[in-house]
């Protein structure tokens, strides 16, 4: 077995929203930085169009990591350079004021969410070319949603995204073939490399090394590019600090594997999403336009509605039936629109280490969360029908599978539904190593340093103390940018 050894001021685990931002700031400040990434580095030419190849390359375990229990919720995570930003839709949202207030009040994060956060947002938006989706790339799916919102008087708007020069290929999940999306593999990882940082891909960190309570490095295994089986070991030493940014599912695992337990993995939150499909007489053309283009934020109802153009393989799975009816619809894929709602669920779960070393995520939506799901699905069905859909497929067991009139959307509200009746998916994860100024309630302090350890930081979605009801990448980056700047100085 080969053995890889390296050392630097900072060792950063993970190259997603958090890790790449930390590496970019620290290397720009003149520090030596090692970035460690479990997944491969994928250039835009390498990104496949077909879902099977695309997801095998960049999505952890083909999106089959899921919550425990009878009705598992898949937890989507990127596993490649850029992390989940390399498969996301590039939607950019500043942290809402009410969330900032709550984080100050309940967790003492005054510094992280104060005016410095707005400055960080300004920098990031400038560097990532954040702009509102232009009408020409909104696509039929987005335009239709705008139309529905208009008709129903809902407060919708085109999204803001970090995809300058988007050409509407509708391939955010598979990887932008133009390299237009400023995901971390395109934006901050290259910047860090230019500033002298080093990147070790296909290296899975297993545990943090300590001398006393001071983190001194990381060890793990190097993986084969094809089989992803271990082919060697590595040991990277950190002169100043180790930064964990492996995402809200894997950072707590690393902490647990490194012997840190207090509050680790507790309080995990998410934004599970529910989607509804509609078939229109006219062509919608989901294959053209920004993957996600239009949104209706309903913060007072803990939900945010979004247009979402899926790869045809996923779209087909959601169309009901088998045989002739299914096949007839498959021949008209171009006539479908799909919109989803992400729900700010109140429930809190926990992340633990499973039998084979992988994560076990316990997460059960509350009764109120399920009510939110019902409201969201009903509203989406109503919107699609109002926009002129001939047929709407809510994809919820226990209600009719095909709706043709707006009034039928109310059946979702009236039905005695449970979580298992919905098909959910969660791609926003939070709070599994919460920041708090009180060590009794958090894992990391407001400077994102792990309570009770020296030279060990968590700089990713795990440190955010709660979910927010909006897309999290920008908040993660803004919070990490400030914490990394303090660490750099």
């Amino acid at each position, binding site marked *: 077995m080969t053995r890889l050894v390296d050392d630097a001021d900072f060792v950063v685990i993970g190259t997603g929203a958090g890790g790449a931002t930390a590496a970019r700031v620290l290397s720009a400040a003149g520090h030596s930085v090692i970035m460690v990434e479990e997944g491969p580095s994928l250039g835009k030419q390498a990104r496949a169009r077909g879902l099977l190849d695309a997801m095998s390359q960049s999505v952890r375990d*083909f999106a089959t990591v899921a919550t425990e229990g009878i009705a598992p919720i898949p937890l989507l995570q990127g596993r490649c350079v850029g992390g989940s930003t390399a498969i996301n839709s590039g939607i950019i949202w500043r942290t809402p004021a009410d969330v900032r207030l709550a984080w100050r009040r309940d967790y003492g994060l005054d510094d992280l969410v104060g005016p410095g956060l707005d400055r960080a947002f300004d920098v990031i938006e400038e560097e990532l070319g954040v702009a509102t989706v232009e*009408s020409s790339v909104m696509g039929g799916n987005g335009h239709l949603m705008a*139309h529905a919102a208009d008709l129903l008087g809902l407060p919708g708007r085109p999204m803001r995204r970090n995809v300058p020069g988007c050409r509407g290929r509708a391939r955010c999940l598979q990887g932008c073939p133009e390299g237009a999306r400023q995901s971390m593999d395109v934006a901050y990882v290259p910047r860090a490399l230019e500033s002298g940082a080093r990147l070790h891909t296909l290296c899975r960190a297993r545990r943090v090394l300590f001398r006393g309570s001071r983190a001194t490095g990381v060890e793990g295994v190097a993986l084969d590019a094809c089989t992803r089986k271990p082919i060697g070991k590595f040991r990277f030493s950190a002169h100043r600090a180790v930064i964990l940014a492996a995402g809200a599912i894997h950072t707590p695992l690393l902490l647990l594997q490194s012997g840190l337990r207090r509050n680790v993995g507790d309080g995990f939150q998410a934004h599970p999403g529910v989607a509804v499909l509609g078939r229109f007489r006219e062509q919608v053309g989901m*294959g053209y336009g920004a993957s996600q283009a239009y949104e209706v934020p309903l913060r007072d109802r803990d939900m945010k509605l979004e247009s979402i153009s899926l790869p045809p393989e996923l779209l087909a799975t959601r169309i009901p039936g*088998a045989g002739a009816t*299914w096949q007839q619809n*498959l021949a008209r894929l171009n006539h479908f629109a799909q919109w989803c709602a992400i729900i700010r669920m109140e429930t809190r779960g926990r992340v633990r280490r499973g039998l*084979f070393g992988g994560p076990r995520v316990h997460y059960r939506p509350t009764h109120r969360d399920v009510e939110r799901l019902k409201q969201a699905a009903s509203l989406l069905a109503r919107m699609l029908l109002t926009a002129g859909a001939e047929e709407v497929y809510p994809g919820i067991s226990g209600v009719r599978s095909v709706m043709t009139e707006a009034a039928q959307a109310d059946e979702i509200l009236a039905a005695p539904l449970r979580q298992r009746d919905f098909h959910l998916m969660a791609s926003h994860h939070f709070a599994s190593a919460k920041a708090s100024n009180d060590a009794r309630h958090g894992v990391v302090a407001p400077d994102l340093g792990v309570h009770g350890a020296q030279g060990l930081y968590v700089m990713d979605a795990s440190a955010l103390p709660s979910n927010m009801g909006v897309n999290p990448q920008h908040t993660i980056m803004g919070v990490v940018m400030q914490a990394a700047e303090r660490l750099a100085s």
Partner: protein
Amino acid sequence: MTRLECTWITDIVAAFAPPGGPGLAPGTLEVDYLLVFRRVGREATRRAAFGLRIAVWVVALSPILLGRGMRTFSRLRPCEQTALLGQLLAHRLFAFRELTLLLKFVAAIALLGTDSVRERSGYDLQAATSVQTGTGARHHLPLVPASEPARMPSEPPGELV
């Protein structure tokens, strides 16, 4: 996987969209379902891979489990197979419908992951969207295959008629 399981997989997954059916119908042997099933199983977590295998057994034995005689899925006539899949997908028992859905996922990936089939689906046409915009105008986007260069955002949007 045993040879019996491989036969079951091909029979079950292919039955979601039988050749010769209406709409998007693959040709015989146009789609390699078994290969896709194997790959999905390899990429998935152990738990999910196990779930996939259980799904094959449950659907294969569903005629027996549902009291429809001592026949496996493979022994049913093609039209019966497809009808049974439809029933399982809508079954009131969570396990039946979710496990069947897993196999439908494989079917969809295999079907639309086959270039020739995907082309016939029309998904990649940049739709001539006829969307009523807020002003009541109809907004048309050009009908161009997505493989051709799309317009840059700086170029004028689709014509309004």
